[in-house]
């Protein structure tokens, strides 16, 4: 059974049909990238799955159960965690407060241990733990956002444009970290405009264009696909 199974999903907001009937699935432990240009409907798809944007029609199954009517805060408890576009940090709160916010939906005793794990993963954040998150560099902020999402102990992680607004060298760094997270067996759906780096680390990829999925294949095949090369890889 697929962990996430989206079929014939339609989403509109403000009168715009942003997503027009897409099918997408993720198996447990898989890293899948969803690439496409600005405004293709990638982020809207993520928001719809997370319950933030209402779905017009279609079905979203998580572990075989329809989650369309479940409010976003309950989905977090079920194990869906989102690293929002633009990072969505609580800028006035400290790094540590941000990370702890990530565990808001949990009530178990493992939170302190998990915080140590996040600091081990991002030693940089340990140095900055009591600094306001809004004052960090873009790359550090992305680390906080990623760490915060992991604090919820997700089973499915959505990353919305993790490379956005980062210097090229920082993009490399962030993707190294995503690779580390993935190596723990995490299931990840990666939404990216930077097709090259996204495809280089995922197993499969979907290409989205004006609300529809136009291509779907193994990432290695997509990297060689002449259409993808011309449109997204600049070759």
């Amino acid at each position, binding site marked *: 059974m697929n962990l996430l199974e989206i079929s014939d999903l339609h989403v509109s907001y403000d009168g715009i049909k942003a997503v027009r009937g897409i099918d997408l699935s993720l198996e447990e432990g898989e890293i899948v990238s969803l690439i496409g240009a600005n405004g293709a409907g990638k982020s809207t798809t993520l928001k719809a799955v*997370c319950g*933030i944007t209402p779905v017009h029609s279609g079905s979203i199954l998580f572990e075989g159960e329809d989650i369309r009517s479940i*409010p*976003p*805060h*309950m989905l*977090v*408890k079920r194990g869906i*965690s*989102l690293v*929002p576009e633009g990072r*969505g*940090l*609580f*800028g*006035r*709160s*400290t790094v540590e*407060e941000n990370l*702890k*916010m*990530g565990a*808001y*939906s949990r009530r178990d005793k493992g939170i302190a241990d998990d915080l140590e794990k996040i600091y081990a993963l991002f030693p*940089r954040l340990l140095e900055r733990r009591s*600094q*306001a998150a*809004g*004052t*960090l*560099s*873009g*790359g*550090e902020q992305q680390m906080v956002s990623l760490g*915060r*999402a992991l604090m*919820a102990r997700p089973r499915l992680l959505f990353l919305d444009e993790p490379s956005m607004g980062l*210097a090229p*060298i*920082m993009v*490399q*760094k962030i993707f190294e970290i995503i690779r580390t997270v993935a190596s723990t067996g995490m299931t990840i759906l990666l939404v990216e405009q930077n097709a090259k780096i996204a495809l280089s680390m995922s197993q499969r990829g979907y290409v989205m264009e004006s609300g529809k999925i136009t291509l779907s294949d193994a990432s290695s095949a997509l990297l060689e696909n002449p259409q993808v090369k011309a449109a997204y890889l600049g070759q």
Partner: protein
Amino acid sequence: MKQRLKWAFFVLALVLLPFITDFALGKTWVRILDFALLYAMLALGLNIVVGFAGLLDLGYIAFFAVGAYLYALLASPHFGFHLPFWLLLPMGAFAAGIFGMLLGAPTLRLRGDYLAIVTLGFGEIIRIFLNNLDAPYNITGGPQGLDLIDPIKIGDFSLNHPLGHAVFNYYFLFLILAAAVAFVSIRLQHSRIGRAWVAIREDEIAAEAMGINTRNVKLLAFAMGASFGGLSGGLFAGFEGFVSPESFNLNESIMILCMVVLGGMGHVRGVIFGAILLSVLPEALRYVGPLEESLFGRVIVDAASLRMLLFGLALILVMLLRPAGLWPSGTRRRELAAHGETARHENTNVYDASR
């Protein structure tokens, strides 16, 4: 030990304050202190909505009105009810809390200026209702308001009792309740709910993604803030013995908002400071007229208009010189001071990613 000694001195100072004030400035000023404490409670209530949850509310005075009218209606000859204050104050807080949710529910999706406009309208609706509910049945007494409201009585002892003079009695009652409100505020701020408020204030989508039920948490902010307003309203009615719609106009809402912003949004001590300062300052500026006369031999600028002018000037100066408020919380100060450092961190990071 040193901390305890400090606290003991602080409490002693607060206890002695009305007597010293009376000795130096007279009973009028003790009354001003009473109002300052009342405003402190109101400002702390609004601080929950505006400071903690980041929801701009321009009609906050409506909740004060709900508490005040509830007390007035159930403890005056108007309907002939004379319920005791210990029942009326919680009832007022509860009723105002319900009104808070009533305002919160339809405005959940609004933010910033849009929310401000709706809350402003809500405040006016309540006031206009109070003004007009004297016909066909006289419920609120209309523009004349309600008077002969029972004073607050503890056991058989009315706080209006000449013994020790009413302003002193109310001072101590207000002091205790203001301290309780401040204590609850601080506990709320550091609770799970308090953290959820911070999260929705800073980024609502991210807060949702953290698993926060943003709807309930916002409604709770409205209800908690409103119930503090309702509590102060009841105290106001008992203290004044008279309520009328004109005490609950937009100016009052804005004044309380000024106290919160000026003192330091989200910082309990700052907000109390702002409330006391803004209730004392306009009174202190009443001395401008006599001062002019003694300096120039006659009144050059009308004292009343000069007073408001100086008050406005003071507000503008504070916002220019201390944009985070007079006594901001550490978080806000951190944010405003960090610009130079941020730039430095940014540079070291971007150019040295190997670290």
